């Protein structure tokens, strides 16, 4: 919000100054200003101004405005701090008459990376499921539009890592990745020169696969216990995942939604006559078991 207000104020000032100058200045008689067409952000430079005596100097930039009194007939120093923001600048010098020139400030060398890795959790073996986008900025946080090579280094928790080089387009380098078949942390590092930004993505087990339960009889009660609940790649589903057991007997239906603990979901039912028990995890159905009461 503060930045928006500052920019709004700067633009308002800029247009006010320009309007005043356009109204009062004698542009036709002004001497030419020799300024470089392109300047690197944060790099000061000087321009020569013909004439003699005092003049008022204005530098109108994209995010600020400078006004000072200068002496004509010498070099006019533009401070590095005055040209930190990339964009179009205008210099106006007003003595007996006014003259102006424009120049462009381009981003300096890459110094920062803003790196987005999305999502923070992804199921294993999902194609094109990971988005990596790196935004390249200079030390003054101007987006570096000059193409640069960003190296994405992928380091899974197990297995060998690999890297992929992507050129930036309009300051952004991006790529898509498949998630690997093994759960665990995957570190993705965006590297540009000596600038590095690392992010971590968690590869998690996908839907349950081959869900099976077994029964352990104990008097007129039965304990149902799943085999370790795994996805189709063999990864164990995380503890806390809900597994639903449903028992149907002559008394009606009984259901228990129980979380997986140490890879296994376990529940106990009482038995009354013939019962049918099924198991499910999310939308995945497991096996069914038919039992006779009394076991």
């Amino acid at each position, binding site marked *: 919000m503060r930045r928006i207000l500052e920019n709004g104020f700067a633009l308002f000032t800029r247009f006010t100054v320009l309007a005043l100058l356009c109204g009062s200045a004698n542009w036709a008689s002004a001497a030419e200003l020799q300024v470089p067409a392109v300047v690197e952000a944060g790099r000061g430079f000087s321009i020569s101004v013909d004439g003699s005596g005092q003049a008022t100097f204005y530098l109108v930039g994209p995010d600020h405005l400078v006004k000072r009194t200068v002496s004509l007939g010498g070099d006019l120093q533009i401070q590095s701090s005055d040209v930190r923001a990339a964009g179009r600048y205008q210099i106006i010098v007003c003595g007996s008459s006014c003259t102006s020139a424009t120049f462009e400030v381009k981003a300096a060398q890459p110094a920062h990376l803003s*790196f987005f890795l999305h999502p923070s959790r992804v199921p294993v073996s999902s194609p094109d499921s990971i988005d990596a986008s790196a935004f390249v900025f200079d030390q003054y946080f101007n987006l570096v539009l000059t193409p640069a090579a960003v190296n994405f280094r992928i380091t899974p928790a197990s297995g060998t890592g690999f890297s992929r080089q992507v050129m930036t387009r309009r300051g952004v380098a991006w790529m898509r990745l498949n998630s690997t078949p093994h759960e665990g942390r995957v570190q993705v590092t965006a590297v540009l020169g000596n600038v590095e930004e690392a992010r971590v993505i968690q590869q998690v087990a996908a839907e349950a696969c081959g869900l099976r339960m077994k029964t352990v009889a104990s008097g007129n009660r039965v304990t149902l216990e799943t085999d370790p609940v795994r996805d189709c790649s063999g990864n164990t589903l995380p503890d*806390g*995942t809900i*597994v639903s057991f449903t028992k149907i007997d002559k008394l*009606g*239906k*009984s*259901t228990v939604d129980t979380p997986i603990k140490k890879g296994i979901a376990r529940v106990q039912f009482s038995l009354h006559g013939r019962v049918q028990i099924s198991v499910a995890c*999310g*939308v995945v159905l497991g096996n069914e078991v038919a039992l006779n009461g009394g076991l």
Partner: protein
Amino acid sequence: MKWALAAFLTIATAVLVAFAWLQSGGLKQHAMFSAATPEEAVQALISEIRARDYPQAYASLDRSSDTDLASFTREMAGSDGSLRTYSSLQTAEVSPLHADQDQALVRLRMNWSSALGSLDDVRDIRVRRNGAIWRVVWPKPAFSTVPPQVVSVNYLRWDVLGRNTSQNWGAQDVDSPKVRITSMNAIARPGRVVILGEVENEDTVPAYLNVNATLLKADGSPIEEEGSFDLISHVLLPKQVSPYRIDFPGVRMDAVKSVRMDARALLVPASADPVIAVTDQAVSKDGLNRTVLKGELVNQSGRPVNIAQVLAAYYDNFGKVIWVSDGYVDQALMPQVPVAFAVDIPDDIAGRLKNYRVIVNHYSRASN
């Protein structure tokens, strides 16, 4: 003159005593202890319960009642932070079922109002004549107890460390859980349109979920937007599926061209306990001849659950969700103790339902 003064003082004293008797509930007490019909006896008892005067209500019961004051008070006033403790008796309807010279059976339908809506409590009670007075025979409530024991709970819990807001743009953060609406069905009910279905937390972390629906006209403009409010399990653990129902009162189905669904999930800290089993579910008729889904809830953890809500989804032959109903249980779920529940099913739905699924929402006081 002396006699007149004495007579005046006597009359004034008698009037004041009568006034004090009336003020102290003497009339009600008289009614209670002089009920000439079974209905009067029950009505008098109800008025004492409504006034929360449980000792007085207990005193009016027939001596053959095998309950005691503590059990009676616990049954009527609730305990353990249950929903009944936040309820008050609003109305009571008494209808005779059977009567002879000395005994009668009446149906008592009590309607308790609570912050979560009204709760019906229907029971058939016996009334017995003792001389010229009828008194209610109150059965001892069956409060199950479990033997003292230590319940080991190696419960799972998720905590969330979010991104520091002072960090730069693009800093690492954790995403919201991924949820999916697995089914959606729009049906017309008398005076309203209802959107119902099921939603699944597909992620490996818990989600706090809200499902909203917007009804759209043929030109795409919205008619109305509503949320599922309490007809959903808001906290969904990984791979858990919840039914949802969204009501649009006053909207006609023929005005609706399409529906825009929106499931929003937030990553929240959550616990995987308690596990609540829903046992012996069956569709039957209640005392008022309404179709209900009955069953029992069993809290399998070691801590009491103060308030429980039952959510039931009903499916037709094709596995499509055709109705979602809910009901609150006004007793606390003490560990290992079965507590009965019943949720209403509309008659037209009952005729079409093939299958059903029940889940339980729960609330526990942190201090327990």
